[in-house]
């Protein structure tokens, strides 16, 4: 008995996390990924993981955040720059290009967690590091177009030339703690002064990575080398297990009723196996799920839904990940010509043959909607009034008959092209091992068979499919028919997926030998009207006019159908009852981060006030 009680004590000590929640005003978040670095890697040179951005929402707030309605809101600046308050100015610089000027003023009460004021010096430091020679930044085009003008300790101007409307989404620039990191940076500058950006790129990259790592690694963080600006700071990061964050008393925004009524400690539990993470949720050891956690299928599992009443809310948050089938349209590929894939009627017929409504109902209980264009329905640029392709096999057959296809002896369509009889057998590629895609593929193959189209499945692991030597080389016939996969879209929609050429910058987006096979228009669709509208839209700073231009782009797209739109994915969000302001929306925090308002996350039982309603932004998954 004594032994048993000892064992139980050890058990209780070890399982301390299970008691988290409203009792001690803490929050335990279950995540299936762990950030490799935090904080110090402020340019995301070492890592650009989603989980890193999520955890940093608590630690290093952006100057301007993105709320659940996809709107900017000020966090560190006195007011948002708008055309109306003249803090935002768009200047015509000729050739259809514009320069954007943004005047910003930092709040005077901003402080780092060590009490040092946050000033424009920290922004200048960020800018200096990002502009260092050979810095392997993730978005070099932004760094090339952006300039910073510091006026005084609080006022500064950011310019973009040429500017795109996407430059106005969220914060135009970042910041980093100059008072902590600059001495080390000076050493880096001394070390790199004789190195050449091109010749010594690898050496430079290594030196820079070491610099970021010295303030971002697990060890550096635990040694307290980094300072924080958000409502929380890291108190402990047990690599591979947990990250503990506690309230930062120097944070400048007080939630309604006082900060003590809101969560005081946040613990990230890292459980990489999603089945194990589900078990942890079932066991009550997790209060809420991270943006990166279990799948929607797991969230709908009876084990969870049956235990949820009175304990959990389970939500399906619409996502911006677009599942589709890209079609090879390069006419130099023989098979494309034979099957007429470059003709929109073929693609329209293929889409009419699919019963996508029944598919999303059967596979996803309707939580993931059928898509009709590449723009997510929650994006302000979305156009609902485009041509839709209902399930209609007869229409599909008629369209194919128009192109000379007739049923052959085995029921599969055939036609004569250049004196040769061609059978309608199309290659269909997707990522093997992805159960949903593979099941979908079987269903679609069956539906196409009904209109006389045979499918030759040629799946490969995702590493092969997404290898640029494969996906981006449709022009060389690496894949000759269709490839099913997903694109991750964002609020900053530029229409690049289907552009031939950016008329503002001259960049081309169809991967060919000329542009070293870069660009995402992998199927090779070209529509000059679409390109013209896109070029206008991305430099249009009036949201309504921009939406009109994008609406027309979508009408053209849906008519021409360069790819077969399938569905937009949804992400699950699970929260314990009583947790408020932990709210997921498609673009909250930029990318469906539930902690976009980290200072206001709390438990109603501890006096936290509910500021937003999750039901406005997500669909509840029924519990029984």
């Amino acid at each position, binding site marked *: 008995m004594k032994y048993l009680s000892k064992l139980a004590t050890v*058990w209780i*000590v070890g399982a301390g996390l299970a008691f988290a929640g409203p009792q001690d005003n803490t929050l335990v978040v279950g995540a299936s990924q762990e950030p490799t670095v935090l904080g110090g890697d402020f340019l995301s040179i070492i890592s650009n993981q989603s989980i890193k951005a999520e955890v940093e929402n608590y630690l290093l707030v952006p100057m301007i955040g993105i709320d659940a309605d996809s709107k900017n809101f000020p966090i560190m600046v006195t007011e948002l720059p708008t055309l109306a308050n003249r803090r935002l100015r768009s200047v015509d610089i000729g050739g259809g290009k514009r320069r954007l000027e943004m005047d910003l003023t930092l709040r005077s009460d901003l402080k780092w967690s060590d009490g040092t004021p946050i000033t424009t010096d920290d922004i200048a430091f960020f800018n200096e590091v990002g502009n260092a020679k050979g810095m392997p930044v993730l*978005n070099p085009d932004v760094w090339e177009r952006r300039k910073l003008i510091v006026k005084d300790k609080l006022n500064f101007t950011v310019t973009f030339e040429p500017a795109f409307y996407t430059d106005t989404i969220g914060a135009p620039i970042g910041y980093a703690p100059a008072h902590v990191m600059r001495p080390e940076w000076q050493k880096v500058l001394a070390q790199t002064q004789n190195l050449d950006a091109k010749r010594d*790129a*690898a050496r430079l990259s290594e030196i820079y*990575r*070491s610099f970021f790592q010295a303030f971002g690694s697990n060890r550096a963080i635990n040694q307290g080398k980094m300072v924080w600006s958000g409502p929380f700071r890291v108190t402990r990061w*047990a690599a591979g*297990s947990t990250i503990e964050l506690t309230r930062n008393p120097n944070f400048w925004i007080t939630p309604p009723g006082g900060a003590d009524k809101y969560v005081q400690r946040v613990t990230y539990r890292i459980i990489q196996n999603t089945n194990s993470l589900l078990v942890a949720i079932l066991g009550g050891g997790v209060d809420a799920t991270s943006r990166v956690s279990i799948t929607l299928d797991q969230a709908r599992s009876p084990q969870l839904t049956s235990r949820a009443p009175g304990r959990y809310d389970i939500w399906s948050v619409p996502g911006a990940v677009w599942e589709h089938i890209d079609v090879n349209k390069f006419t130099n590929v023989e098979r494309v010509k034979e099957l007429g894939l470059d003709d929109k009627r073929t693609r329209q017929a293929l889409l009419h043959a699919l019963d996508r409504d029944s598919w999303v109902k059967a596979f996803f209980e309707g939580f993931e909607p059928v898509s009709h264009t590449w723009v997510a329905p929650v994006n302000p640029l979305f156009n609902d009034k485009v041509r839709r392709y209902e399930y209609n096999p007869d229409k599909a057959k008629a369209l194919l008959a128009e192109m000379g296809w007739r049923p052959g002896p085995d029921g599969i369509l055939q036609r004569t092209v250049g004196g040769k009889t061609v059978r309608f057998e199309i290659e269909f590629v997707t990522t093997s091992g992805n159960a949903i895609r593979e099941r979908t593929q079987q269903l679609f193959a069956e539906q196409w068979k009904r209109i006389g189209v045979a499918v030759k499945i040629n799946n490969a692991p995702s590493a092969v499919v997404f290898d640029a030597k494969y996906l981006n080389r449709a022009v060389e016939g690496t894949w000759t028919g269709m490839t099913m996969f997903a694109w991750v879209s964002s609020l900053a929609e530029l229409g690049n997926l289907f552009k031939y050429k950016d008329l503002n910058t001259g960049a081309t987006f169809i991967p060919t030998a000329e542009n070293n096979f870069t*660009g995402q228009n992998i199927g090779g669709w070209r529509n000059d009207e679409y390109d013209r509208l896109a070029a206008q839209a991305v430099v249009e700073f009036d949201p309504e006019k921009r939406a009109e231009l994008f609406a027309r782009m979508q009408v053209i797209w849906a008519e021409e159908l360069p790819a077969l739109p399938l569905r937009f994915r949804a992400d699950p969000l699970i929260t314990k009852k009583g947790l408020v302001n932990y709210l997921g929306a498609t673009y909250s925090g930029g990318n469906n981060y539930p902690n976009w308002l980290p200072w206001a996350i709390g438990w109603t039982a501890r006096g936290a006030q509910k500021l937003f309603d999750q039901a406005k932004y997500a669909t509840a998954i029924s519990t029984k």
Partner: protein
Amino acid sequence: MFAYTIRRLVQMIPLLFAASVVIFALLALQPGDPLDELRQNNPNLTAEQLEQLRKAYGLDQPIYVRYFKWLGRALQGDLGQSRSYGVKAAEFVFGERLPRTLLLSGLAFAVALLIAIPVGIFSAVRQYSTADYAITFMTFIGFSTPVFFLGIILLYLFTVVVPERTGLPALPTGLPSLFWSDVTTGSISFFGFIGTWASHLILPVMTLALIQMASWTRYMRASLLEVLNQDFIRTARAKGLAERKVLYKHALRNALIPIVTLVGLAVPGVLGGAIITENIFSYPGMGRTIFESLLAKDYNVAMAALAMLAVLTALFNLIADLLYAVVDPRIRYS
């Protein structure tokens, strides 16, 4: 014996060189590169910028140049940096991940051996008894249960079902959020520290040990039964030796010879980590390191971990061979 050992050690050099070439080539030849994800997610990257990044990551050079650069540095003890973590690959693999695997797999190894050998002996000595049938039945279940299934069932039992039925808190998994400094600063007692670690290790150790135990019990039983049926055992019994002496002094030592080989060869596998168990119980050890580094195309980490496994496999092969001579006087190396 000494000369033999030296000769074998020298022979290892070309073997390890060949292994490193194969590992490096396989890693380099796998589809894609670390820039694929970037290329997919950032449509604005121009060909020139991409080329600059390739240069920065050293991906623009031919495989053989990259290999010899790696080898040159590796021979000086520099295994490069982890691309994902930004830390030194050697420090990450040998300093952080390997000790954790040693703890988890070492414990599971010890538990499995400590249980499997006596149970195997018992089963052999009581051949065809009810207990033997029961043990055989259990070991076959152990043999045929996939580790991912056993792991998730144990996890479900001890973190959901038992707490729901008994009110006891769930058995924790993953690593405890504790540092050694917590003991030195007095925020937790030494025994509290050990107890917390132990509570975190119960489930993964149990899973790994149960699977390993099943096979070692069968080997032990079969090996002992074979020895017990030999003439010299009959002779020992005929000359009136006590059964205890016959069993432990004459039979067991001979029966352990194949077990020594088995155990010796299992050690590199143990150090390679148990990827599935580590994954289920969120335990960041070697298995997960190898898997993740391959997925993330973190070549330096993957090379460090796989090269270490190659060295250990060669080394433990040698140790197993040498142990042969120790346990079996009939074997002599020259």
